[in-house]
């Protein structure tokens, strides 16, 4: 399997074109703003409770800063990740480079793995940059590292799912905008699916709840590691990548 050269090529393309830099900048800009407002609000709340200690019982920096931060970051990702993944196959198809790529002695699976891992690596770098925020928090307050780490694990798993869906959508079209909108639509729908669980009730409600992307992410941020959630994301990734492979093969037959 020649995954490594494909991975390197994709990373090079992300970084020689402005894509990676623009994504990093915008992500940190919005993420930084969210962090600042959450942290400032928490500062205000702790100042008030310093004056009135009875109110301060439930103040927990991990739960009141990091958890909302993670959930805000996932919303940014929902908007941003389709733009990172849309080019992976659609651009190659549009420019015709896929014809060369798919006639090199690499299996479709290796091409897919290289591309997926490159997008994932870009994402991991992006997420790693946000470690600055807990770094700032820990300078002022005592942070529980457990929930922070599981929160990051949750973000990685969820981002991996986003990327898998994005790669799949990108393999279906030669239009990058179509790929981005499809990815965004699918992800948003899966995101809000849980909302209807309450009034659907019963088994249907539980199924909807289980399918929701959001639902599974929250427990990570709380510091809960549940195999159910990990398996959910893993399943999702495997399914989306499998469909991508099928779509690549179908495209070969249709020319």
């Amino acid at each position, binding site marked *: 399997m020649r995954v490594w*050269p494909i991975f390197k090529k994709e990373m090079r393309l992300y970084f*020689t*074109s402005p894509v990676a830099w623009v994504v990093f900048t915008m992500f940190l800009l919005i993420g930084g703003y969210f962090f600042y407002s959450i942290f400032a609000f928490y500062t205000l709340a702790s100042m008030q409770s310093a004056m009135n200690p009875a109110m301060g019982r439930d103040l927990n920096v991990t739960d009141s800063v990091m958890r909302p931060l993670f959930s805000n970051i996932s919303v940014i990702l929902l908007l941003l990740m389709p733009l990172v993944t849309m080019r992976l196959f659609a651009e190659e198809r549009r*420019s*015709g480079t896929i014809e*060369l790529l*798919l*006639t090199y002695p690499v299996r479709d699976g290796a091409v897919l793995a290289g591309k997926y891992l490159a997008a994932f690596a870009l994402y991991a770098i992006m997420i790693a940059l946000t470690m600055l925020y807990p770094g700032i928090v820990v300078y002022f307050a005592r942070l529980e590292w457990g929930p922070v780490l599981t929160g990051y694990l949750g973000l990685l798993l969820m981002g991996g799912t986003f990327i898998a869906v994005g790669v799949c959508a990108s393999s279906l079209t030669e239009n990058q905008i179509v790929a981005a909108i499809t990815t965004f639509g699918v992800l948003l729908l899966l995101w809000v699916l849980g909302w209807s669980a309450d009034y659907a009730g019963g088994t249907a409600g539980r199924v909807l709840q289980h399918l929701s992307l959001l639902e599974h992410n929250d427990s990570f941020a709380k510091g809960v590691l549940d195999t159910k959630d990990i398996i959910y994301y893993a399943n999702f990734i495997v399914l989306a990548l499998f469909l991508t492979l099928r779509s690549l093969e179908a495209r070969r037959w249709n020319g």
Partner: protein
Amino acid sequence: MIEVERLTKHYGPVAAIRDVSFNVAPGQIVGFLGPNGAGKSTAMRILACFMPASSGRARVAGHDVLSESMEVRRRIGYLPENVPLYTDMRVAPYLDFVAEVKGVPRSDRKRRVADVMDRCRVADVQNRLIGKLSKGYRQRVGLAQAIVSDPEVLILDEPTIGLDPKQITEIRSLIKSLAGQHTVILSTHILPEVSMVCSGVIIINKGSIVAQGPIDTLVEQFFPTARVEVEIVGPPPAVRERIRAIAGVLSVQDLAAANGASRFVVEAARDRDVRSEIFQMAAQQRWELLELKRVGMTLEEVFIRIVAGEEAEEAPRS
């Protein structure tokens, strides 16, 4: 080296190629010739393992393109039409990527990339973005990526399209230099290119092969006659009569005449050289012979005759 047997490819109900069969011997350069839309690119895409055929078999370098696709892909260099390259990459890293993905060992890679950049004359732009290069340079980068792994078989789809005459000559001599160690199949619709570069030719029209073989054989096959062009100062009807009277002459055609001279194209059996007799005749009649030359039959004429002949055959039906 390339064996193709009854290859057919359907796009929906439309057959892009139908029952195409041919062989290419090792070390040969074969031209794949046909008008636009004849099915050249489809055939090459199948050989390059980009898409499978609907039916039929193709073997490249001894391996089946469908069941042993990886083995085939390791042994070919492919240049698709329109030369798709990563416009956001620089030339040297791009070629290094191709070499790596094609399995050139790490220790060899730097040397091979440098070597191939020299051969294709792209060394002076190696640090430029491919998207900023001129068409000629891109074409050469495309060729460089095809030969960087030193493959046994090269599949080049319209390698000289869109180049200026000087670049065309360079690319042609580069391709010619590949003969011997590499088997090359190249498609083109520029006829002189085939006669200049290739040893054999496959003519394809509307998805089917209409003629194939060494160029000389094809010319003989489609033009069993030899032609001579004559320019004589003399009364045209009388001159025509005299020439026609020469044994072996099959037909005499008028060409545009000037300054009292008349020009004719004389067609005679291939094994007969009528030039000396024409000279004798002119001398006897005391007509001034201004020009007398043999006219070579070009591949272009073969091609036009084949393609036009097919269309004439089909015309009554439609």
